[in-house]
């Protein structure tokens, strides 16, 4: 069942809470929050978030999709000063709203692109976050990455020129993050992210990284392990859907993505009983 809400300061944030139709939401399951992918409003790219929310609700999860300030149906930020920290304030407001409205105590954050970046930030900042699904989240160059990137583009000298420019910029501005080749998004320094991932793992936060073939900053399955060798992998799962594009525009790729996420969530957070999927078939026993 979907219900729409206005919440937050001045009730300017807009979201939709999807709850299980037949059975009450499992009290001990975290509530899943879906975060905007760039400027796409809360239905998600190609309606991905609506389909995902309804399938997760059929498994007993409550799922909240909402728009950050200034995106989709939500009002613009109330103060001009609102800046990089606005998404953090908005997600805090969503969690506080869900605590009051749906008695949620713990959360799994999920998002694509900027939604993955915001999921990471909140996971670090708030201990109510017990899991995160990061679609095309942070990534950094490795030996294996650069070998593949430049081998694929061996006939493209422009890549070599861009590489030198980027490294020069990184040398001149050591405090800033590194922009990966071929992509406009800048990531925080790798050491910062690595340290934060170690903190999250130590806190018991479960993390699921899924990279698509639509970004050229992630090029092989083991790149994550090579990027962060010190991060213990027991709490982390990484998948690389090489055939999918960045927004999973094809039906088959979206179905595969949704299946992977629902399975991971069920394995990670439904541990005390068998669960059955919406079609009445036994899908997984943990």
């Amino acid at each position, binding site marked *: 069942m*979907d219900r*729409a809400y*206005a919440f937050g300061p001045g009730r300017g944030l807009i979201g939709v809470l999807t709850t299980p139709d037949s059975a009450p939401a499992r009290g001990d399951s975290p509530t899943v929050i879906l975060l905007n992918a760039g*400027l796409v409003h809360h239905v998600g790219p190609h*309606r991905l978030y609506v389909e995902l929310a309804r399938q997760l609700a059929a498994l007993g999860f409550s799922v909240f999709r909402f728009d950050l300030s200034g995106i989709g*149906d939500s*009002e613009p930020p109330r103060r001009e000063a609102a800046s990089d920290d606005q998404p953090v304030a908005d997600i805090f407001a969503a969690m506080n709203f869900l605590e009051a409205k749906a008695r949620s105590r713990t959360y799994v954050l999920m998002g694509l692109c900027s939604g993955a970046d915001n999921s990471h930030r909140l996971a670090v900042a708030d201990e109510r976050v017990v899991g995160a699904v990061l679609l095309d989240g942070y990534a950094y160059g490795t030996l294996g990455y650069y070998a593949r990137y430049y081998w694929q583009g061996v006939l493209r000298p422009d890549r070599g020129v861009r590489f030198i420019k980027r490294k020069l910029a990184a040398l001149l501005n050591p405090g800033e993050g590194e922009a990966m080749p071929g992509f406009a998004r800048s990531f925080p320094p790798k050491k910062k992210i690595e340290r934060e991932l170690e903190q999250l793992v130590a806190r018991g936060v479960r993390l699921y990284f899924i990279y698509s073939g639509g970004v050229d900053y992630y090029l092989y399955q083991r790149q994550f392990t090579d990027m962060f060798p010190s991060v213990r992998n027991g709490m982390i799962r990484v998948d690389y859907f090489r055939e999918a594009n960045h927004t999973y525009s*094809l*039906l088959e790729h979206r179905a595969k993505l949704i299946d992977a996420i629902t399975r991971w969530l069920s394995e990670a957070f439904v541990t005390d009983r068998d669960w059955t999927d919406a079609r009445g078939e036994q899908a997984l026993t943990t």
Partner: protein
Amino acid sequence: MIPFYFGPSANELFGAYDSPSGVSYRGVVLCYPWGQEYLCAHRAFAVLARQLAEAGHHVLRFDYYGTGDSAGTGLEGSLSRWRRDVELSLDEIQAMVELRSVALVGLRLGAALAAWVARERRDVDRVVLWDPVFDGNAYLDELLDKPGHVTTSTAYREDEAREGGEIYDVLGFPLTPTLREAIRKIRPVEYSELPRTMLLSTLDTRAGHAPLIAALETGKVDHTAEHVAGPIAWLEDREFGSGGIPVQGLRRIAQWLS
């Protein structure tokens, strides 16, 4: 803005209501385009709704059945169903607030739906046709001719057997044989017998709308046609993953309706 669900409980539609700051008896229902164009245009529609509310209108925008936050799957959508959704939204806004006039604003396929409903309903006194689809075949060509945008899927096999034809997935939005056939029938003549009409083009030149303007004139529709250049609301800007905000065009819609 107040978000809410309305309509029959099993088939609820998602609505977004913007209220004017003062007392007003004027209402506007906004009709989205379809598919990827809907996702792109959502941003401009949210801005338009706020501008219209500031100009003194009660504004309702809504997602058609099987799209956006509304109930249903994409396979269940059809033009006849969405036309009923427009009518349901007109009934809903008039049940929510007392109105003395109500207008429809439709973009692309939403303009065709708005025109059909405006022609039938005496309570609609103005209609804005924004980059309207008035040649169904040309519109289908636009949807289906983009490399990489259209695929078929084995997941549709059962639905295809029921539909009796192939279902195309257009960037995540299923285009069924039923929907294709209904779209194919859209012609300029559908735009006759309308109340006062504004034709706003942001992409094509006025010459591109010549068949539609001829139909409006033949049908003796009281109309004005304007071309306002600017960002295209319903086409994806790869930089942002969303459509643009045609500031001048939105301002003209608000001025004309006011």
